[in-house]
């Protein structure tokens, strides 16, 4: 074992005070410096942190940003989202692969490069995209991929890849990204120019905490992360829970395929997010805050840290905030490890605690016993922004926008086959057709609202409205034209869920695999009508018997596509005839055997003169 390894491990542990709940940060540090967390390193870490190797191993194997095998100095993670696939990520992958001389999942022999696929990195509006270490590269083409690969071979510095900086704060020295915000429509609440700095916080501090909660309740604000739980109610429950410590967590994990609106808020509205969190802390009596930032957005970390530092200096964080005696609150940023399930609030809490990102059994709910057993509210980035704006503009102003049960505006992340992909701030209740018009979608044929766990719509359903009463969404809105294969989309979503299931519940871990097998059977043309019944039946079982929202919703693309595109399915189903099952093809079943035995069939290959099939 190298002396190096020992000192890296010691330093990393020391940096985070040997704190068990900070183990994710420790692992990240080690992974960065040693390019892996090997078995030996795990032993060292376990000894250093007084835990067991199996605990460390559990973490390293769970989070995709950690690896037991040594990786290259530069890890190229190609976004393998369905949008990126349709935008040509395969061709880009081929170029990287040829230029660097390694296949997907491989590391070059000089330990300089690793090439991987990764699920949606939140750049669907500028697909195909990739992460090169922390640096984001967007709108890739086979040509630009070649340029990037060759430049990296000469110089391993990834920041040199950013030739042209994006708009707004993307051009900030600390962000330094080629990412574009693509803000297409500004609304009154979040992206407009009327957002006044700290106005909400100042007004909140003049009120009693109960009054702040009442305002949020009156505004009708519902969570923007997807589930739409009443924010005011969540806050009041947390306030009522008896404990000396309460936590405010901001969910910036944004992992739902096709969602990227939190990325834009984090870039352009960082202060508003922290302001909202501070208001929440004041309202519930919160003592500390955590922003759980997805690992893919690490490029925003230095910038966000600077904003936090500035707020501390300005007395907006720390002790006696805004001059309010006794109100102390601070925020730290926790980086994730590349796992979609960590967006689920109880899994997110597990992850903040330094555990595998597995959902917890409820009750108790986080508002009673959350982070480290203390009452905790988890809200989406956008929710906190809305809360801050409500305190400024007043609940009535907010409730006047949107529909009866979905007040305010919503950020939609529009991607796919349209002229203007990007962020649209629209009032709740807007019709799908209107969004398509705004985005300049020509020939929209399939629309997926709400990401992988959302709903698939056909043309006849474009009159439907985006709001919690009808189509709820965390923001993902993907549009596909008539050249796209509907089943490929469904197949991709299932692949995504299979990859991202935490594996705790059998129906979710295994059921999604079976769903995908049937979908593929349909695509290959071997399915019969009974297969559709099987899909529906199994979907119900998975949704009913899974522990968390992932399994509760993962079959939705299957069910909604069967409902919306019955003709596509029907055209692919076969008929058995003469008592035979169409799903079985003897020719296909024999292919492998023929190859291995190097001979043909006595019965089914006509050459031998047997009866044929």
């Amino acid at each position, binding site marked *: 074992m190298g002396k190096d390894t020992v000192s890296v491990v010691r330093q990393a542990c020391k940096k985070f005070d040997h704190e068990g709940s900070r183990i994710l940060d420790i692992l990240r540090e080690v992974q960065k410096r040693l390019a892996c967390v090997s078995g030996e390193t795990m032993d060292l870490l376990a000894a250093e942190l007084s835990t067991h190797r199996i605990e460390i191993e559990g973490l390293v194997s769970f989070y995709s940003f950690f690896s037991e095998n040594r990786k290259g100095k530069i890890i190229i993670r190609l976004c393998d989202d369905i949008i990126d696939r349709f935008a040509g990520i395969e061709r880009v992958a081929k170029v990287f692969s040829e230029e660097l001389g390694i296949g997907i999942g491989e590391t070059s022999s000089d330990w300089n490069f690793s090439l991987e696929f990764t699920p949606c990195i939140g750049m669907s509006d500028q697909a195909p995209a990739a992460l090169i270490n922390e640096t984001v590269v967007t709108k890739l083409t086979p040509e630009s991929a070649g340029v990037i690969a060759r430049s990296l071979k000469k110089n391993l510095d990834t920041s040199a890849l950013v030739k042209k900086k994006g708009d707004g704060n993307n051009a900030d020295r600390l962000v330094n990204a080629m990412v574009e915000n693509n803000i297409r429509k500004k609304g009154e609440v979040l992206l407009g120019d009327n957002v006044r700095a700290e106005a909400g916080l100042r007004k909140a501090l003049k009120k009693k905490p109960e009054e702040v909660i009442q305002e949020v309740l009156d505004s009708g604000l519902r969570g923007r992360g997807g589930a739409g739980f009443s924010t005011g109610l969540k806050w009041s429950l947390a306030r009522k829970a008896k404990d000396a410590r309460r936590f405010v967590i901001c969910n910036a994990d944004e992992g739902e395929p096709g969602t990227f609106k939190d990325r834009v808020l984090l870039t352009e509205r960082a202060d508003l997010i922290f302001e909202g969190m501070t208001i929440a802390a004041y309202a519930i009596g919160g003592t500390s805050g955590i922003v759980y930032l997805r690992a893919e957005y690490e490029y925003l970390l230095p910038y966000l840290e600077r904003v936090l530092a500035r707020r501390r200096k300005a007395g907006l964080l720390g002790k006696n905030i805004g001059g309010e005696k006794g109100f102390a609150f601070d925020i730290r940023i926790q980086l994730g490890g590349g796992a979609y399930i960590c967006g689920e609030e109880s899994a997110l809490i597990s992850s903040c605690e330094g555990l595998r990102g597995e959902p917890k059994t409820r009750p108790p709910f986080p508002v009673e016993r959350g982070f480290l057993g203390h009452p905790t509210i988890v809200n989406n980035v956008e929710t906190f922004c809305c809360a801050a704006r409500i305190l400024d503009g007043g609940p009535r102003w907010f409730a006047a926008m949107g529909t009866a049960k979905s007040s305010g505006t919503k950020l939609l992340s529009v991607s796919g086959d349209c002229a203007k992909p990007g962020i649209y701030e629209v009032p709740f209740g807007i019709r799908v057709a209107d969004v398509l018009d705004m985005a300049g979608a020509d020939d929209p044929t399939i629309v997926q609202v709400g990401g992988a766990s959302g709903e698939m719509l056909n043309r006849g359903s474009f009159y439907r409205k985006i709001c919690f009463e009808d189509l709820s969404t965390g923001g993902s809105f993907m549009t596909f034209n008539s050249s796209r294969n509907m089943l490929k989309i469904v197949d991709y979503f299932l692949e995504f869920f299979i990859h991202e299931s935490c594996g705790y519940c059998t129906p979710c871990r295994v059921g999604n695999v079976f769903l995908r097998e049937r979908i593929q059977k349909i695509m290959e043309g071997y399915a019969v009508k009974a297969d559709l019944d099987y899909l529906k039946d199994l979907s119900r079982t998975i949704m009913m018997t899974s522990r968390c929202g992932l399994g509760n919703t993962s079959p939705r693309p299957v069910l909604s596509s069967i409902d919306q595109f019955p003709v596509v399915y029907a055209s692919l189903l076969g008929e*058995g005839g*003469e*008592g*035979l*099952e169409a*799903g*079985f093809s*003897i020719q*296909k*079943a*024999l*292919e*492998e*055997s*023929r190859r*291995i*035995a*190097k*001979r043909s*069939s*006595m*019965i*089914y290959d006509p050459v031998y003169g047997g*009866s044929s099939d």
Partner: protein
Amino acid sequence: MKKRLATVSLAGCFGCHMSFLDIDERILDLMKLVQFDRSPLNDFKKFKKRCDIGLIEGGCCNEENVHTLREFRKNCDVLVAIGQCAIMGGLPVMRNAIMHAEDPLRECLDTAYLNSPTVFNASNDIPNDPALPLLLDKVYTCAEVVKVDYQIPGCPPSGDTFWLAMTFLLKGTAADLPYELIKYD
């Protein structure tokens, strides 16, 4: 007129057929009602006439199984899958667990004939006589290959189960098997 009955064992162990014979002397009563056509019990290899009932033991692991099963479907009015192997694949289906391997069939053959600790195979040959039926890529249940009318569960179904099921089948209705006959723990 007597009903015509055909039986066959595909990828099974003949256990179901043995168990069938556990109806003991009741077989004399059965013979008053049925005429055996193609079956290993009388060693008739081909169908003589169209049959009323076909009993299938075992699933399909090779091309000959598929061929035979399809013959049965073609020649029998009512097709009954008997036992775990016919219904779910049984022991042979365990090889489907390596389906996700790079080259599953090769792995299966290598394990069976070359790599298992108990194998002695000095010539390192994997049997490949042209007369041997080709293996399928995986093991299929009967219902995956042809339409199956009834299934009689058990590994094997007991003689009493066979008896009762036959009684119902000859009446032309689905058997309502009592709990004791289909409880296995």
